[in-house]
């Protein structure tokens, strides 16, 4: 059953309608449409960047066809609604991997471009947009433009990370990377605090993938304790899933409000941290549980209850001892909100073509908060202030509440971006942050 909501289930909006986009040869004519439109595929953006309150959505789930795969050069062309799950199922057995994957494989290629997503290899590979060779964009004028760094480069740069506002992406061509097999050789290192994390992150260039899970409810001496994971592609001798492999567990309905609170999350964090008895473990696992641990539980956002949740993801300059991150942790621990297990990673300096791209050199932190109204919003605004003062940024794909002032500070190139917005395209996010 298709639902047109964002992953965090906040805010709730109502759309005037949905226009399905079914065939790349027959894009919808938008010149006579009254309301604004916004492309929507998997709905895995957390806040309101994939919503268009009062307007229309262009449902691109039907644009799910592969077009061509050059198995020698590793170049894949596919329609915008194809999921990363579909691509990996096809290419991994043939020795190719997506250049960048996020924490879930249930996102579309169009969404990966529009949010210029990043993954555990950002320090080496940069963002998804850095591996897009070209794409075709339909504008509401009816124009169809193939965009790349050579053709319509400004429109290409606006579309990568452009939150779906520059037009409808019909298809894209992506450069894949060679892998030895479906396995990941993963080492997990327990660390006792932020400065230990920073020491581990110093050596991240030696590994293709690095990420850390941090217990942000731990206070005092244990503040910032967690588990650092680093891995590289390797072979896999275990069984491969069949083309008929079934879907996974699902959370069938909303959990009661307050199920995830400071007590339950604190206990979970303690267990998660203690599960690993030794300081270091090493194992070879299949790629899916390494990259997409939460994909094993469908609709996990429902555990936060009917009010939904907010994910807060920021990037701040990498100062000695993780100074800004420490301040953020202290403010979270000092509030009475209940942050979940946090994800911490060091971004690298590979540039993205995207004008509105979020990743930049520094430390990035992502934390979920059950939505509890004004108190939650007040804490996140307080964190925004810390990030603004540090010269960092907050990720639009996860956002449902940043102020217009914050947005302009985080994305100084927004004016240059705005001239490329299609006049018929808009989103709840854009109207919120563009309002002066």
């Amino acid at each position, binding site marked *: 059953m298709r*639902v047109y909501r964002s992953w965090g289930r906040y805010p709730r909006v109502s759309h005037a309608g949905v226009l399905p986009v079914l065939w790349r040869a027959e894009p919808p004519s938008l010149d006579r449409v009254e309301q604004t439109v916004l492309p929507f595929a998997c709905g895995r953006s957390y806040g309101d960047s994939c919503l268009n309150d009062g307007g229309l959505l262009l449902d691109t789930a039907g644009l799910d066809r592969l077009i*061509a795969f050059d198995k020698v050069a590793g170049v894949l062309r596919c329609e915008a609604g194809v999921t990363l799950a579909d691509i990996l199922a096809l290419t991994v057995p043939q020795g190719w991997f997506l250049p960048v994957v996020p924490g879930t494989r249930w996102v579309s290629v169009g969404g990966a471009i529009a949010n210029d997503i990043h993954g555990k290899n950002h320090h080496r590979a940069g963002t998804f947009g850095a591996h897009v060779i070209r794409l075709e964009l339909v504008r509401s004028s009816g124009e169809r433009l193939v965009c790349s760094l050579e053709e319509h480069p400004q429109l290409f740069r606006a579309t990568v990370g452009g939150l779906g506002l520059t037009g409808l992406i019909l298809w894209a061509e992506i450069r894949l990377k060679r892998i030895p097999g479906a396995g990941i050789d993963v080492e997990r290192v327990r660390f006792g605090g932020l400065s230990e994390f920073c020491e581990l992150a110093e050596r991240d260039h030696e590994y293709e993938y690095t990420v850390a899970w941090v217990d942000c409810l731990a206070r005092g001496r244990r503040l910032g304790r967690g588990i650092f994971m680093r891995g590289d592609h390797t072979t896999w001798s275990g069984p491969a899933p069949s083309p008929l492999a079934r879907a996974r567990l699902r959370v069938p309905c909303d959990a009661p409000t307050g199920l995830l609170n400071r007590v339950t999350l604190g206990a979970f964090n303690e267990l998660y941290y203690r599960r690993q008895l030794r300081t270091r473990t090493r194992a070879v696992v299949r790629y899916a549980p390494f990259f997409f641990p939460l994909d094993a539980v469908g609709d996990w956002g429902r555990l936060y209850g009917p009010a939904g949740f907010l994910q807060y993801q920021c990037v701040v300059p990498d100062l000695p001892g993780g100074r800004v991150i420490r301040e953020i942790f202290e403010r979270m621990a000092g509030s009475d909100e209940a942050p979940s297990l946090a994800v911490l990673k060091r971004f690298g300096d590979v540039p993205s073509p995207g004008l509105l791209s979020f990743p930049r050199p520094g430390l990035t932190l992502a934390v979920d908060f059950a939505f509890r109204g004004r108190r939650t919003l007040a804490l996140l605004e307080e964190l925004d202030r810390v990030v603004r003062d540090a010269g960092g940024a907050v990720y639009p794909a996860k956002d449902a509440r940043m102020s217009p002032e914050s947005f302009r500070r985080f994305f100084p190139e927004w004016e240059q971006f705005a001239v490329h917005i299609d006049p018929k395209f808009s989103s709840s996010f854009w109207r919120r942050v563009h309002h002066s």
Partner: protein
Amino acid sequence: MSTTPERAGRRVLIIGATSAIAAETARVFAAYGARLFLTGRHSGRLDAVAADLKVRGAAQVETALLEVTDISRHAGVVEAAFAALGGLDVVLIAHGTLPDQQRCEESAAETVAALEVNFTATIALLTLLANRFEAARQGCIAVITSVAGDRGRQSNYVYGAAKGGVERFLEGLRNRLFRSGVAVITIKPGFVDTPMTAGVAKNPLFASPRRVGRAIYRAIEARRSVVYIPWFWRPIMFLVTALPESIFQRLRL
């Protein structure tokens, strides 16, 4: 990917291959390395589906434009499929339209047109194909009908009549071809959440085309006779058909 020899290279004809359900079924065949012959009404759409199946692993994909109501072309297209693939192991008949019941009630021509697509064309194709499969003494004929064919309801009895008629025909054909070793499969999907129904109010009974496509593949693999997809439609339709007419005629369904 585990590709057993029987699955790889299997020769499959799909009528109405650009429907979301048929394309999803074809993807499973393609992933196992099948050889496919697809028909559809629009060349742009047919080409998009064919390219997708090639990338997903189909050993061969051929296409032919076919308006199923143009019955004079059936023999030529079936012949072309046999020639291109060197015989057939599976045929999946998936074409169909959902007629507007209101307009059918106002126009006999509209009703007849709906029956021609959903009933007459299917019967004509089956008549041709049955003889070829019977002669080959192997294979599988699968036809997508609908739960709507189980009992006529005021909201879509023209569609229901066409699908129900096809089901009676398939019962007889299954009986006839049993001795030749040819499986005849009646596939009855319930509500399917295709992008085409994006504007329609949804309920939890809607299934995704991917789920339905995979279930059709499994039904063909297992040579089932009559299959409801998803399975829960079987008890639902059992109850719907068990209601006495004296009660049923009073309901607004």
